[in-house]
């Protein structure tokens, strides 16, 4: 008796799309890890104890931009991360410290062990006002106050203010590949 041919199985389109997404994600992780050579590995972190003097802004934004670039973030991401760090530090000087330029700021930035996201940590000992707790205000282009926070929320993947007993901790994260980029990569790989 001839063996019966198994019936063809049909997978829903959503399952195929899911598998493609997972495969694309794994290929990113593998290629990112394979490119890392311990002998030439980029610097893992930037740690700076600075004052709230705006003269420090250029140094810090360049340092974090260079860190992102060394870990393979594209030019747009490097520029946006640097801008967000600049805006966050400027807000500390202007708002948390009321314009004082001699107060301490602890700054750190690193890239996670999978080389997939850059994390920023900014600690101040200012007035502790949480921007997330302020009432939302209507955006008027001719009143540009608050633009820094708009940049943070638009350009970073996660922005978290944690009030401290004596100030504020701001933590921000930016993924190397944001969801829109993943979709772009998926379409690009599918066409190959």
């Amino acid at each position, binding site marked *: 008796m001839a063996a019966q041919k198994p019936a063809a199985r049909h997978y829903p389109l959503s399952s195929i799309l899911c598998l493609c997404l997972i495969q694309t994600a794994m290929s990113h992780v593998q290629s990112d890890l394979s490119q890392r050579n311990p002998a030439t590995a980029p610097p893992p972190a930037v740690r700076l104890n600075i004052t709230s*003097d*705006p*003269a420090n*802004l*250029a140094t810090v*934004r360049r340092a974090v931009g260079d860190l992102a670039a060394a870990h393979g973030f594209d030019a747009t991401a490097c*520029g946006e991360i640097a*801008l967000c760090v*600049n*805006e966050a530090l*400027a807000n500390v*000087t*202007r708002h948390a410290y009321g314009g004082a330029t001699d107060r301490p700021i602890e700054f750190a930035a690193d890239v996670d062990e999978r080389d997939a996201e850059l994390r920023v940590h900014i600690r101040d000992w200012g007035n502790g006002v949480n921007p997330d707790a302020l009432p939302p205000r209507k*955006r008027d*282009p*001719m*009143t*540009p*106050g608050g*633009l*820094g926070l*708009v*940049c943070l929320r*638009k350009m970073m993947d996660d922005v978290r203010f944690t009030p401290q007993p004596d100030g504020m901790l701001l933590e921000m994260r930016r993924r190397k590949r944001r969801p829109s980029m993943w979709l772009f990569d998926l379409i690009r790989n599918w066409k190959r």
Partner: protein
Amino acid sequence: MTQPSQPQPRDAQSIRTGSDLVPAARRAGENVVAAVRGEIDLHNSPELRNVLLNTLLGDANALPNRLVLNLEQVPYMDSSAIAVLVESLRKVQRGGGKIYLTNLQPRVKGLLEIARLNAIFVIVASEEEALKK
């Protein structure tokens, strides 16, 4: 090293700014044209504010029809610089004028878009185009 000089109309008068941030400015008829140079952040935006509001727009009776700012040599600016531009725009508008921004670098253009100011300033490719419009 000397900077290459821009062709100027015959009636152009150069304006002394005393600022490296705005190394070249001139009045051409009812227009003022200025070139801005360098990264602008909270550290030096007060200097930009002083040049724009006091030196170039200081005389409330002689506000220009067009203030043309060539930003070709500005690779980066932050929200404090944007605030200075908006304050300058308010002042120019009091005399019925406009601000033209020319030769924008991508990051500066991106920030203006986020600030939703790309339709409020007149953004053009070159000084010549700004003066022609």
